[in-house]
């Protein structure tokens, strides 16, 4: 966990006071909606179909149990008893009242939570690997660098009025769980030949109307220079990025239109002009941030405790363990993913009661720490293996032990037309129906790793372009239709999915997905060949043929 200092606490509290005054002036009519809109967006407040939506920042997806309890309280006191964890590792409340928002913000501020820069044309929540700091083989904890970037970019005047929103993700593992290649800037922490810590810097990734995979702009930027290099990129973007057309305003368009080589030259020139600036991080500055992260006092524990050996006789426990428990860098410990994808449930939602219970379990089994993943699941990052059986029983009672992590029912979905004013079509009911179709866990296991991503519009909050199967809601003559893509992926081999054919109506989507999965099972050359690998080997044609032959 990162402990905020006095400066952070003052900043957050001052922001609450400022927003309270802004809301008061809005409700009295002193501010018009046009004047107020940018102010509310800077505090994570959108206006959706039924109500205001309040997006709360969870920097790099790390939460304390105390913070989780406060989120539960906000859900219960100010909303309708639940919250929605997002692909940006944030949480959204869908039914909040503007008049009560300052009070909710004040209560969150007491535990170091805010909503700054969760919306608007500025630097959004810096995301990272939800297993940061505990994954085996990691170069180092990427959250240290996420925090340095968070501090530098929060309320930074030069980054507060960018041409468009700007997203950074950081990973420090070979396997990219942070989807860095679909971000405006992706940072891959690694060591150079001299053993120095630095970053491969990627730029220009993004989804939405015009999707691009990020390109490497510089293979190695020393850690001490990362702030200045990122700032150089942002300066070039701020200077040349388009402000006249919202659809062409993201940095991905600029990188595409200039070409990565020319863009890189511009950045290099800017960076050189900045010289050895105040942005160069000295060792003590990095260590100061590092020192504010606290790590558990791990015990020396056996690799295979007796409790785990005994529990292995229970097939239900074993199925969950194999699916939802991952290796930890410390012997005797595990990382446990809590599935927020129960059969028939809205993906990523958790009730206030569940949040409170998760906080209690985090205190009991995970040194009070919880993580949020961009896949809309949670994780307990420090669970002793001896505690796994007890934890599983508790999670099962709470509906949080569905053994479907990374399987066909672990669906990423945006709120869609049920909530969102931008959506063309519903996402959640499609996800719910698919989880019912594939509810049999043995079948899901037999299918293997398969990511379905659903977006209710082209803005792609459900990351449909990079789903192994992507589902995009569109509107045709007032009816909901869905385009299907296959073969996308968001990891270190990120690529966009390929459209298989004409959009299909709402009522046929689940049948089409079943057809695609059945085709895969018939086409894969061995059980270990993953869906995306079969698509890569054979292309989309066999799947297209299966789906459209009878339609």
């Amino acid at each position: 966990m990162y402990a905020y200092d006095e400066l952070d606490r003052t900043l957050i509290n001052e922001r609450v006071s400022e927003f309270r005054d802004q809301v008061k002036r809005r409700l009295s009519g002193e501010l018009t909606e046009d004047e107020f809109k940018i102010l509310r967006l800077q505090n994570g407040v959108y206006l959706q179909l039924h109500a205001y939506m309040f997006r709360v920042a969870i920097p790099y997806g790390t939460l304390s149990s105390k913070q989780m309890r406060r989120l539960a309280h906000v859900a219960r006191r100010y909303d309708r008893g639940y919250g929605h964890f997002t692909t940006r590792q944030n949480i959204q409340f869908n039914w909040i009242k503007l008049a009560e928002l300052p009070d909710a913000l004040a209560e969150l501020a007491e535990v170091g939570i805010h909503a700054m820069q969760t919306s608007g044309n500025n630097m959004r929540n810096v995301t990272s690997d939800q297993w940061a700091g505990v994954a085996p083989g990691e170069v180092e904890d990427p959250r240290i660098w996420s925090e340095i970037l968070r501090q530098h970019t929060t309320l930074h005047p030069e980054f507060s009025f960018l041409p468009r929103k700007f997203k950074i993700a950081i990973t420090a593992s070979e396997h990219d769980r942070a989807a860095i290649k679909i971000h405006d800037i992706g940072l891959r922490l690694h060591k150079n030949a001299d053993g120095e810590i630095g970053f491969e810097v990627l730029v220009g990734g993004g989804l939405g109307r015009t999707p691009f995979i990020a390109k490497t702009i510089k293979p190695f930027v020393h850690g001490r220079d990362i702030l200045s290099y990122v700032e150089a990129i942002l300066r070039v973007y701020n200077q040349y990025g388009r402000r006249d057309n919202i659809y062409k305003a993201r940095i991905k368009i600029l990188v595409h239109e200039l070409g990565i080589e020319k863009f890189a030259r511009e950045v290099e020139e800017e960076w050189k002009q900045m010289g050895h600036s105040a942005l160069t991080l000295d060792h003590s500055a990095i260590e100061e941030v590092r020192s504010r992260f606290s790590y558990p006092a791990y015990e020396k524990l056996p690799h295979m405790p007796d409790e785990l050996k005994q529990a292995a006789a229970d097939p239900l426990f074993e199925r969950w363990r194999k699916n939802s428990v991952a290796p930890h860098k410390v012997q005797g410990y595990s990382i446990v993913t809590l599935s927020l994808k129960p059969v028939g449930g809205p993906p990523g939602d958790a009730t206030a009661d569940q949040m409170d219970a998760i906080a209690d379990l985090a205190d009991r089994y995970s040194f009070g720490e919880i993580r949020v993943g961009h896949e809309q699941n949670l994780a307990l990052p420090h669970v002793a293996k001896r505690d796994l059986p007890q934890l599983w029983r508790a999670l099962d009672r709470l509906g949080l032990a569905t053994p479907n992590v990374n399987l066909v029912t672990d669906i990423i979905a945006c709120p869609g037309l049920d909530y969102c004013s931008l959506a063309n079509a519903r996402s959640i009911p499609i996800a719910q129906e698919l989880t019912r179709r594939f509810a049999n866990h043995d079948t899901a296991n037999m299918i293997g790793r398969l990511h379905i991503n659903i977006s209710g519009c082209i803005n792609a909050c459900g990351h449909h372009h990079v789903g192994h199967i992507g589902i995009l809601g569109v509107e045709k003559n007032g009816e909901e239709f869905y385009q299907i893509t296959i073969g996308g992926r968001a990891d270190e081999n990120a690529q966009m999915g390929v459209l298989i054919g004409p959009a299909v109506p709402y009522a046929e989507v689940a049948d089409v997905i079943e057809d695609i999965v059945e085709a895969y099972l018939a086409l894969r050359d061995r059980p270990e060949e993953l869906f995306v690998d079969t698509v890569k080997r054979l292309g989309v044609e066999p799947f297209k043929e299966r789906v459209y032959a009878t339609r």
Partner: protein
Amino acid sequence: MTSPLEQKKIRITGPSVVTANRTWDGAVVYRTAQQGWSTALSEAAIVSTSDDARALLAEGVADDVGAVGAYIAPVELKGGAIKPGNLREHIRSKGVTIDLLPA
């Protein structure tokens, strides 16, 4: 918010209402014939011509303190009742099409 420019382009093809979100809590509201807002679609003022729609919208937009983002939405009149004219308006009027709480 619908801009004045967009308002000039308004052409409706059937019965319509003006809807918005109430400023203090964001609730879905409909412009009434009494120059106020109601959360009940049944109390909405119905307009059937483009000129009337434009006038009702202008009235709604002018009440920036009461409601936000006013726009014209189609409705259907069935047996004396007012029904939302499309899925979006159905969801705004009746609520989400899923269970509110996670299963």
